């Protein structure tokens, strides 16, 4: 009889606070929405102090990957704000650069530092802003020094990233037109006589201030 009495009493005795903390943890985890202290206690055994358990639980999660946060007058478990970037799944797609972008990049590489107007003159068509922006974004080109010509236009130069990607030590390692031709990369349909002879010098980008900045190392 005494035993039964004890048992009955213990049924109404609140579980230890560590156990209450576990309960709050499980309920907050599984609940589909933030939950108030009142609701927590309604679900926990009689005599529990959810507010106190929450204090412990909050402390336990301090500095962890998730936190116990107050949402209005309710509580929820949320990702630590500094780890929000983990909730993104990045898929990387590799795409070939467009012809316009390749040509623009080639001109910058061979003629740097080069202004937009110069690129347009060489390509014979206007260079779209998107193309330049794309190359800037990929970080294959960057702004060089302004040209000391009227209007002081900005110039473009290739970056270290560019050199790394294409396996070049310097932009000077880019093959000249002669080499391109001997490698069969230049169209040789023109009658040889009518073709202006290209000298090595012509292919070299002009040495200017901006360039020495890029090439100095």
């Amino acid at each position, binding site marked *: 009889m005494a035993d039964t009495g004890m048992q009955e009493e213990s049924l109404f005795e609140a579980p230890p606070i560590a156990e209450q903390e576990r309960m709050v943890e499980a309920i907050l985890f599984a609940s589909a929405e933030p939950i108030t202290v009142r609701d927590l206690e309604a679900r926990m055994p009689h005599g529990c102090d959810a507010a106190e358990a929450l204090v412990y639980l909050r402390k336990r999660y301090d500095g962890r990957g998730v936190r116990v946060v107050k949402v209005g007058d309710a509580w929820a478990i949320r990702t630590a704000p500094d780890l929000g970037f983990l909730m993104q799944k990045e*898929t990387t797609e590799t795409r*070939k650069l467009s012809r316009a972008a390749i040509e623009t990049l080639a001109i910058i590489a061979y003629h740097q530092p080069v202004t937009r107007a110069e690129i347009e003159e060489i390509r014979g068509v206007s260079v779209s802003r998107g193309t330049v922006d794309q190359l800037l974004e990929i970080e294959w080109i960057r702004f060089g020094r302004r040209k000391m010509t009227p209007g002081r236009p900005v110039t473009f130069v290739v970056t270290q990233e560019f050199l790394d990607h294409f396996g070049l030590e310097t932009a000077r390692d880019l093959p000249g*037109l002669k080499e391109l031709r001997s490698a069969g990369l230049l169209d040789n349909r023109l009658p040889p006589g009518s073709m202006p002879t290209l000298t090595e010098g012509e292919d070299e980008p002009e040495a200017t201030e901006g360039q020495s900045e890029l090439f100095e190392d």
Partner: protein
Amino acid sequence: MADDDFEDLIQTQRVAERLAAEALIVDVDGFEGPLDLLLTLSRTQKVDLRKISILQLAQQYLGFVEQAKALRIELAADYLVMAAWLAFLKSRLLLPPDPSEEGPSGEELAAHLAFQLERLQAMRDVAAKLMARDQKGRDFFVRGIPEDVMRVKRVTWTATLLDLMQGYARIRTRDEFRPFVMDRDSVFTMEQALERMRSLIGYAGAWTDISSYMPEGWDNDPVRRRSATAATFAASLELVKEGKVELRQGGMFEPIQLRKREPRDG
């Protein structure tokens, strides 16, 4: 009286049969096939399945089927196939082995049937154990507020050195074509100059600077001017050769003058 008694008996039997028949129909429906029925029957032996008497079980099964037949209960074909097979097994187990007979012995067949029963029972036991486990959504729970993973598509652009060089070569090749075509544009040919001068020399009675025979609009662009000058000069020489004009120059770098040649006498 005896007849009545007999009739009563028959009547009673019929009622009992009907009741039994109904019970059997229900029972047969309740079994999931002959193997399940055998397993149920085997429990009446109250021994470990490994020690079960297959002979006794076969007799029980055949008795069950006989009873069902007597009660005109339609048994599914597989129950009858099993009955036939058990009858065969029973005869094998009872008769001394015939050395001339091929195939597995009665004991082997009985052992396999025992294995099948044990295996089915084992599967039922583990199925119960499985369902008694803590189950998701009943005993343990998943995250109530799962966070969506944002899918960020990132595009990596790629190009090879070959692409780059081909691209550059493409531009430069086009450059080489253009001057060739444009040279024609800014070239004033000797034929054009001749044609122009032939129409003009009729009025060239006095010495005039050959530069005045330059086509209009060709003196702004140095390239065009050079071409036109050369063509006009060459055309003048051609006209001298033809004996149509005379040329004179006061000294080095002096203007070259031209006039129509009057046909000489003699």
